C-alpha cells in the first residue's frame, strides 16, 4: 500500500469519526438528574475521608485520602518529600492529626502516609475497579492549600484517556496534588498528580500503580525518579485498523517513520497476530498492555505478511521521542 493511500485512509477515519460523534446518543436531562443524585450522595460519603497535608518541616503541602480504618493515606509521591517525614493531616471539619511519610514510587508519583498516635477509628474510602474512557468521575482536594473556611471543592468530569496516568477534565491546580479522584459510587480511582496546559489535561495516578507497589511502599521504600513523571507513553510506532482482520489479528494501517516498528521493517498491510505470545483479540487489550510498559521495554510481535509468519522483537520508545523525530 502506498503512503498516499494510507494517508487518505487515515483522513477517512477522522471524517468517519467526526460524523459518528455528531450522531452519538446524547445524555438527557433525565440521565443528568440521575447523575446529580449519585454525585451528591457520594460527596457526603467521601468528603470526610479527604485531607489536606502540610509538612511539619515547613514548605510543601498537598492533599490525600484515607483508605483504611487504621489511618493509611494515599497521596502523590511529590507531596511526601522523604520517608519518615512528619506531616500534619487536616480534615474538613477542622480536626488535625499527625502522620509519617511511608514509601513512594516517584516514577508513578504514588506515595503513602501513615497516621500516627491514637486517633480512634477513621473514615476511609474503598479502592475502585479499573476504569473506562468516558466514565464520569469527581475530584476533591485542596486547591491553593487547605482553607479552614472551605471544605475541599468538588469538581466533576470524565475520564478522557487511560495510560500510565488517567487523564480527565476534572480540573486541578496547586495544592490538589495527592487528592482523590472518585467514581460515581464513591470508590477511589485515582490520585491527583500533574496538569498540562489545557483544561482537559489533568493527570491522576491510577489505582493499578498503587496496587503493584503496595507492600513495598508501605514498608517505607522510596524509589524511581520524577523526571519520567512527566507524561510519557510507551509506543510501538504504528496504527492498527479498528476492525479485526479476516483470518485473525489486526491490520497495520500506517507505520510512523523513525520508530522501532519502521526500523524493524513492519509494513502497512501486515497483520499483528499476537504480542508476547498472547493472541491479539481486541485493540483495548493491546492498549492496556502498553499502559503497563515503559519506554525501553521490549515486546515480541507475531506478524503475518502474505503467507509468511514473522517474529519481531521491538523496543518501545517514548511518545516524546517521537515528537523530536517527526
Amino acid at each position, binding site marked *: 500500500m502506498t503512503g498516499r493511500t494510507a494517508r487518505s485512509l487515515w483522513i477517512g477515519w*477522522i471524517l468517519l*469519526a467526526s460524523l459518528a460523534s*455528531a450522531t*452519538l446518543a*446524547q*445524555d438527557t*436531562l433525565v440521565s*443528568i*438528574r440521575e*447523575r*446529580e443524585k449519585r*454525585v*451528591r450522595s457520594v460527596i457526603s460519603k467521601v468528603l470526610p475521608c479527604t485531607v489536606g497535608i*502540610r509538612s*511539619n*518541616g*515547613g514548605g*510543601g*503541602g*498537598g492533599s490525600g485520602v484515607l483508605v483504611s480504618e487504621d489511618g493509611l493515606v494515599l497521596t502523590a509521591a*511529590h507531596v511526601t518529600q522523604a520517608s519518615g517525614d512528619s506531616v500534619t493531616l*487536616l480534615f474538613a471539619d*477542622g480536626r*488535625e492529626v499527625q502522620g509519617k511519610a511511608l514509601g513512594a514510587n516517584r516514577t508513578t508519583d504514588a506515595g503513602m502516609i501513615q497516621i500516627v498516635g491514637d486517633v480512634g477509628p477513621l473514615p476511609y474510602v474503598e479502592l475502585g475497579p479499573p476504569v473506562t474512557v*468516558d466514565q464520569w468521575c*469527581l475530584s476533591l482536594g485542596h*486547591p*491553593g*492549600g*487547605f482553607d*479552614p*473556611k*472551605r*471544605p475541599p*471543592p*468538588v*469538581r*466533576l468530569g470524565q475520564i*478522557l*484517556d487511560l495510560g500510565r496516568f488517567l487523564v480527565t*477534565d476534572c*480540573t*486541578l*491546580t*496547586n*495544592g490538589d496534588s495527592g487528592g482523590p479522584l472518585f467514581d460515581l459510587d464513591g470508590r477511589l480511582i485515582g490520585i*491527583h498528580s*500533574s*496538569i*498540562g*496546559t*489545557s*483544561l482537559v*489535561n489533568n493527570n491522576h495516578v491510577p489505582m493499578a500503580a498503587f496496587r503493584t507497589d503496595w507492600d513495598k511502599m508501605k514498608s517505607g521504600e522510596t524509589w524511581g525518579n*520524577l523526571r519520567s513523571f*512527566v507524561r510519557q507513553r510507551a509506543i510501538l510506532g504504528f496504527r492498527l485498523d*479498528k476492525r479485526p482482520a479476516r483470518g485473525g489479528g489486526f491490520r497495520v494501517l500506517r507505520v510512523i517513520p523513525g520508530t522501532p516498528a519502521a526500523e524493524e521493517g513492519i509494513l502497512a498491510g501486515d497483520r499483528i497476530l499476537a504480542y508476547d505470545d498472547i493472541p491479539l483479540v481486541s*485493540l483495548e487489550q493491546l492498549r492496556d498492555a502498553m499502559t503497563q510498559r515503559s519506554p525501553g521495554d521490549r515486546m515480541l510481535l507475531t506478524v503475518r505478511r502474505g503467507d509468511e509468519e514473522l517474529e519481531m522483537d521491538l523496543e518501545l520508545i517514548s*511518545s516524546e521521542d517521537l*515528537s523530536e523525530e517527526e
Partner: protein
Amino acid sequence: MSQTRVLSKLFLCALCSCFFLPSMAIAQDTPPDQPQEPEARPENDESPERQRRRDRRGRRARSGFFSGARPRQEDPRYVARLAPYAELVTPMATHTCGILVEGRPRALATVVDDGLLLTKASEITDRRFEVDLGNALRCEAEIEHVFDEHDLALIRVPVRGLRPVQWAAIDSLSLLPGSFVACGDASGTPVAAGVISAPVRSLSSDNQGYLGVNLGAADDGVRLTNVEPDSPASAAGLLRDDVVMFVEDERCESTSQLIRAISSRSPGDTIRLRFLRGDQSQETSVTLGSRAALESSGANDDSSGVSNMGTELSDVRSGYPVALQHDLAIRPQDCGGILVDLDGRPIALNIARASRVSSYAIPAAEIVKLLHEWKTEQ
C-alpha cells in the same frame, strides 16, 4: 464497530497535540492561610480600602506562557456534552443581554427590572460600552448604581418591555456541593455546565486579623516555621521556631485553631501570646495587621502561577461578601449572566472566572437583598 471506539480514536489524535506540552506537578509551595507578603507597597496617601479596590483591578491574566489553550467552548466534544442543558439555559436568554466594549463581547447583563440590568461592574467602569439587546439592536446605557463589594453595576437602558428574571432566591444552605448547574450566552446557547463546588461563603477578608507567620505542628502548641519581616509578628519580637502555646488564655493545640483565633479578630486588635522559645516560656503582645491589605487578588485557588493555566481569568475575582463557588469553565465575558440549576431555576449570577478550577457566582438571595436595599434608599 461501536461509536464509542471511534470517538476515543478521534480523541486520541486530538490529544497528540498536547502530549508534548509541559506537564506540571501540582504540589503547593506555600500554605495559603499564611499568605506571603506580596511586593512591597509604595508608601502613599491612599487609604487601604482605596488601594485594595485599585489592586483588585489588577492586570487580567490574559496571556502568559501557560494560558494559551483554547476555551472549552471551542471543543466539539464539550459542546455535545452541553446540548441537553439547552432546555434549561435557553429560557434565560429572554432576560440576558450582551455588553459590548469596542464592539466585542465583554460581559453579560441580566434584566432585573424594566429598563434595569445588572452586570459585572469592573468590566464596564471607565470604559465606553454598549448594550446588545439582540436582533441587531444596540443601545447606550447609564450606570445607575455600583455595588462595589459585589463588583455589580446596575445599568439603565432607554428601552421598555424588557422582561425581568424571577430569581429563585433559595436559602444558601440549600445550594449544596455536587448540585448540577449550567449557564448560557446572550443567545441562550449553553456555554458551560458543572457542579457547585463548595457551600456559599464569604470571600471578604476586610475584617480579618493578620499575624504574618507560617505554621507547623509541635508537641506543645503551634510552631512558627517562618516569620515574615515587617509583619505584626516580627514587630512583637516573635522568631522562627517559637512555639505558640496560648492565645490570651486559650490553649493553642492546632494550626487551624491558631488561624481561627487570629482571623476571627480584627486588624488593630491587640492579643497576648504565650510561647516557648527553646525551653523558656515567654509572653508578648501583638497588634494584628490587616490581611486584606496584603491580598491583591487573594482568591483561594489563586495563589500561584498555574492558577490560570488553560483558562482566561476575570480582572476582578475576589472579595465578594457572599459567593457560590462552582467548577464551570466560563470565560470572563460570560460573567453577568444567569446560573441555573437542573430545575431551570435562576439561582445565581456569575461574577468571576477565578482560577483554573473555580468560578464564582452571587446567589440570587443576595441579589434580591441588594436590589431591595437600593430601592428602599431611592
